[in-house]
Each structure stands twice: as structure tokens, then as C-alpha cells.
């Protein structure tokens, strides 16, 4: 096992090798400016702690400034021929805004969704719960129509849809609400190790309330073992929660089989479908799903809204998180936001309408991207290739550190894992659960493809990744050793 600091070497190398012109390398050396290539542009938004924030306008300003310096500096022109050139797009006659390829974090709002929402911000501002006047009636009608659209995607009844603030709230509602309601007789919850943070944290907080939680492991493909799940069910188990599509590796769990097992043992089955809703075929009746969390901003809808599907027959009871006016069947009090609800409804309607088109388009681009990326040596696809949502691709590039690759890829918006964990430099717990070692977990990158991704962008990304992985590997001492045929596992690294 080699330490993390060794793997991260490539990031600091550019300043030593002198690849950047001397002006820049001295600036990089002089301070903790490893993240900013233009000190002047970054200073404008510098915070007290010396952390700088970059906005897209800063990137553009910085690129322009850098281009100016380069065009006046003969030394810069000479040394300008590096593989990292594309990382700092400049003066090439193209724009500067990065390609968006992080569709698992969030998706762009569809213009058709925005068009639906705008009238609820301009003229139709009534409270949908006011039933004494026309302003309330008109928004209430639209809200109920949106509910129909949301329900139709999963073959549910509109009355079974509860609007919440997002999938995180839905997950919390279920993980806390269901066990609390049945706490007198049931004391056990089952979930998996690859769930989203909000499910894991909610489950952990239930341990403090005296519940027992079983975290099921996954195999190297990221799939759970249904037999193991069945064996884990006890007479006092009240809830099983398994996500449908994983947010980091895109693996699809065998939801239908899990639903059957849960029905057989009379245990409630909750599934977190934030990444799956509208993207893979889901039928709550066919799959025996009792509760389902849905998010709007993953399906080109507005942010700040989601839904929870709660089965009515047989009725699932849960304790609400919020007390109040008793809206949404008393499960989620608080005034609904008609602009968000209608936007969500329109987004759901479009997911259903465009399902085949989107599916074919995304699969085609996904196959192209996968074959392009895997043509590199030592690049592996994480997660099962067969049970896989094509719009989420997680690839490990051995001997390159993910973070340094992302630094070299400023022109592409990617992430090395979920948005909530990418702030900390912790390796992904999902990849850990798959049995990947630290080094491989650190060198993995997630690519998300959506409705608005173009073929041109995919071509650009393939080319950029191939160039820069090669470049970073050439800087890496580990890669050199691998090329010489040294088995890295046989080396004993000294401690720091």
C-alpha cells in the first residue's frame, strides 16, 4: 500500500519541472495558490482565511489575463507547448466556460420547465391551500395536475405523492418516521453501505434512538446479495431501504427481487430513487415498492423540491418530521410552492414523454465515452457493466490522482464522487465498499451524461482525458516504476 502523499505528487510537479512559464511557477511557489492560476483575478474575491472563490467570470478574466501575459512574453510562447494547454483554454477562438458533465450532482433546468414556472412567479401567486377565492383555486388545480404527472412516471396514484423539499428530506422522513411510528414492536432497520449520505446519517441517528441497523455490504460490482438481505430480515425488522441507482457508480440494484422479499416477510420497502426516477423504468406496484424518494433537480426540474411516494393500500404510517397545518395528508406541513411544484410536474411529464429519445441518445453517447476512456491503459470502469445506468460512468485511472486530474481538467466540470464528499479529500466510501483500495478510490472520476450533453462535448472530453492522463502519468514516479515492471505492492514505503 502506498501513502496518499505519494500518489498526489503530480499536482506539485509542474512548478518544479518549469512547465509553466517562470512567472507563473514563481507565483505558484510563493504562496498557497495551488488552486489559482491567476493571482490577480483570485484576489478580487479572496476571503479572510486566504481561501479564494472562483466564479465563471473570474475564470474568464484570468484566462484573458494569462493570454495577454503569454502573448507578450517570448519565453512563454516557447514553453507553451505542453499537454496541459487545454486545461487553460486561451486565445484559441473558443469560449472559456467548462463543459458540464456532472449530471448526478444536478441537471440544467429545461427551458420548457422554466416556461411553466414563470407564470407562477408573475401572475398566479395564490396560496394553493386557500380555498375561499379564485387565486387559491387556480394554483391548487395546477398543483394537483403536477401531482398527476409525478405519479404517472412510476404508475402510482396522485394521492400517494407527498411533496417535500427534496430527496434528502424524503429519505429522512422515511428513515426516521417509519421506525418511530412502529417503535413499540419493531426495532430493526436494514440498509446498505453504498447508500447516499443522508440515508446513512439518518440511519445512524436512529441507532441513538435505540434502533438496530444492519448495513449490508456489496460485491465488487456494487450489487447487494438478495439472499444476504433475506437472512438479515428479523421478526422485528420494520424497514428495508435500498437505493435504485447509485449516485456515484450508477449501479442498478435488483429492486424487483428486493420488493418481493420484503412483501413475503411483510417488511416495508423504501427505495431512494433520486437518480433513478424517470431514467429507468419503475413501477411501484409491479416492484412492490412501499415508499420512494424522488428529487426534481435530477430530472431537469427546479431545485428545492422533491417528493415522497407513500403507498395507500396497504397503508404505510409514518410519524411526520414537521408539525403544522396538516398539508400533504398531514405528513408534510407547510405551504406548497406552486412554481416549484408545477415545474417539477412539467419535468416529470417531459421525462415520460422523452423517455425513449433520451434513453437512446444517452446510451449512444455513454458507449462512445466508455470505449474512449477505457482505451487508455490501466483504466477501469467501476461498478457492474451489466446492471448500470448509462448516464453515470465512474472510471478509475490508475497511477493518476483523481484530484490532480480534476485540476488539470478545468475546462470540464466533473467530480470525483458525490458533491457532498468532494469537499473533503476523503476517498469515496462507495468505492471502498466495492473493495477498491485507497489509491484506486482516489483516482476515480465520475462522468454524467444527460439530455443536453452533445456529441461534440463527448469527443472533446475523450480527447482531453486521454491527453492529460498521459501527461500526468509521465510526471508520476509510480508510473515510471510500473513501466519498468516493478510490482508496486512489493515495495515497502517508509512512513512519514
Amino acid at each position, binding site marked *: 500500500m502506498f501513502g496518499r502523499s505519494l500518489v498526489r505528487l503530480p499536482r506539485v510537479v509542474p512548478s518544479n519541472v518549469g512547465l509553466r512559464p517562470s512567472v507563473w511557477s514563481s507565483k505558484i511557489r510563493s504562496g498557497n495558490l495551488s488552486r489559482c492560476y491567476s493571482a490577480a483575478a483570485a484576489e478580487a474575491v479572496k476571503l479572510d482565511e486566504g481561501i479564494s472563490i472562483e466564479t*465563471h*467570470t473570474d*475564470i*474568464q478574466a484570468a484566462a484573458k489575463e494569462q493570454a495577454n501575459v503569454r502573448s507578450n512574453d517570448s519565453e512563454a510562447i516557447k514553453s507553451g507547448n505542453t499537454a496541459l494547454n487545454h486545461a487553460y*483554454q486561451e486565445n484559441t*477562438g*473558443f*469560449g*472559456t*466556460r*467548462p*463543459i*458540464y458533465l456532472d449530471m448526478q450532482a444536478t441537471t*440544467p433546468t429545461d*427551458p*420548457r420547465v*422554466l*416556461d411553466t414556472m414563470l407564470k407562477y412567479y408573475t401572475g398566479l401567486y395564490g396560496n394553493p391551500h386557500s380555498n375561499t377565492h379564485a387565486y387559491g383555486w387556480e394554483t391548487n388545480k395546477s398543483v394537483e395536475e403536477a401531482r398527476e404527472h409525478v405519479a404517472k412516471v412510476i404508475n402510482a396514484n396522485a394521492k400517494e405523492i407527498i411533496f417535500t423539499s427534496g430527496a434528502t428530506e424524503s429519505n429522512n422522513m422515511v428513515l426516521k418516521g417509519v421506525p418511530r411510528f412502529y417503535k413499540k414492536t419493531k426495532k430493526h432497520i436494514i440498509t446498505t453501505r453504498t447508500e447516499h449520505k443522508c440515508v446513512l446519517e439518518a440511519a445512524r441517528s436512529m441507532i441513538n434512538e435505540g434502533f438496530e441497523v444492519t448495513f449490508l455490504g456489496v460485491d465488487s460490482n456494487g450489487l447487494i446479495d438478495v439472499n444476504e438481505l433475506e437472512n438479515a430480515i428479523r421478526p422485528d425488522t420494520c424497514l428495508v431501504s435500498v437505493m435504485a441507482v447509485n449516485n456515484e457508480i450508477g449501479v442498478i440494484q435488483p429492486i424487483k427481487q428486493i420488493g418481493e422479499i420484503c412483501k413475503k416477510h411483510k417488511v416495508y420497502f423504501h427505495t431512494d430513487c433520486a437518480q433513478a426516477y424517470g431514467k429507468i423504468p419503475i413501477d411501484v406496484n409491479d416492484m412492490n415498492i412501499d415508499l420512494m424518494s424522488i428529487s426534481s433537480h435530477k430530472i431537469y426540474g427546479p431545485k428545492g423540491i422533491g417528493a415522497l411516494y407513500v403507498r395507500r393500500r396497504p397503508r404505510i404510517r409514518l410519524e411526520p418530521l414537521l408539525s403544522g397545518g396538516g398539508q400533504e395528508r398531514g405528513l408534510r406541513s407547510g405551504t406548497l410552492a406552486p412554481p416549484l411544484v408545477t415545474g417539477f410536474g412539467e419535468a416529470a411529464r417531459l421525462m415520460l414523454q422523452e423517455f425513449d*429519445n433520451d434513453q437512446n441518445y444517452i446510451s449512444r453517447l455513454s458507449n462512445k465515452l466508455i470505449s474512449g476512456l477505457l482505451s487508455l491503459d490501466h483504466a477501469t470502469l467501476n461498478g457492474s457493466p451489466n446492471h448500470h445506468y448509462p448516464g453515470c460512468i465512474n472510471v478509475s485511472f490508475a497511477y493518476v490522482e483523481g484530484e490532480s486530474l480534476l485540476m488539470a481538467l478545468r*475546462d*470540464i466540470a466533473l467530480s470525483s464522487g458525490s458533491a457532498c464528499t468532494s469537499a473533503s479529500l476523503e476517498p469515496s466510501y462507495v468505492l471502498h465498499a466495492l473493495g477498491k483500495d485507497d489509491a484506486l478510490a482516489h483516482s476515480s472520476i465520475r462522468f454524467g451524461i444527460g*439530455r*443536453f*450533453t*452533445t456529441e*461534440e*462535448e463527448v469527443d*472533446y472530453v475523450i480527447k482531453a482525458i486521454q491527453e492529460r492522463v498521459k501527461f500526468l502519468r509521465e510526471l508520476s514516479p509510480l508510473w515510471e516504476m510500473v513501466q519498468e515492471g516493478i510490482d508496486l505492492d512489493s515495495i515497502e514505503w517508509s512512513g512519514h
Partner: protein
Amino acid sequence: MSSVPVPTRRQVLALYKQFIKNSNQFNNYNFRQYFLRKSRSTFKESADLKDTVQVTNMFNEAKKELGILKRQAVISQMYTFDKTVVEPTLKLNHTQ
């Protein structure tokens, strides 16, 4: 609705032209490409449609969508952002 006459070939083609024109007016690269692709494929798929009721329905539906497209293209021009790295900043540079 039955009183509305069936759209002629010319009317449908004129509508298609409007779709392409308005899609092209999106400032946002991804939206522009998407609506161009979508307009082309939708009209192509329904080119062989013979049933008059279906044709009339689709025509009316498309007219509504054109309204959305027109409004959103204008909004896209009101709030503009930097061009993406795959977009040429100058149209003339495209061939270079």
C-alpha cells in the same frame, strides 16, 4: 376542433422552419443543440403521418411548443453567460 381544417404540407413546412429558426436563437449552446436535434427528429418521425386527426392534433401541439420556444429563446438572450470551450467565440473563426 373538427371545424379546424387539416394543415397543408406548406403550413407544416413553414412551422418546421420556425422551429429551426427559434431553436437557433438560443444563446445557450446546450439548449440550442438540443432543440435543433429535437425539432429535426420530431418532424422527421411524423413526416409519414397520414391520419388527418392525428396530423391536426400534432400540428396544434407543435404550435403551442413553438410559443414556448419563442419565449425561452428570448429569455436565453436576456441572461447570457460565457461561451463553453467547444463553442467558437467568433463565427468567422469556425473553419480555422
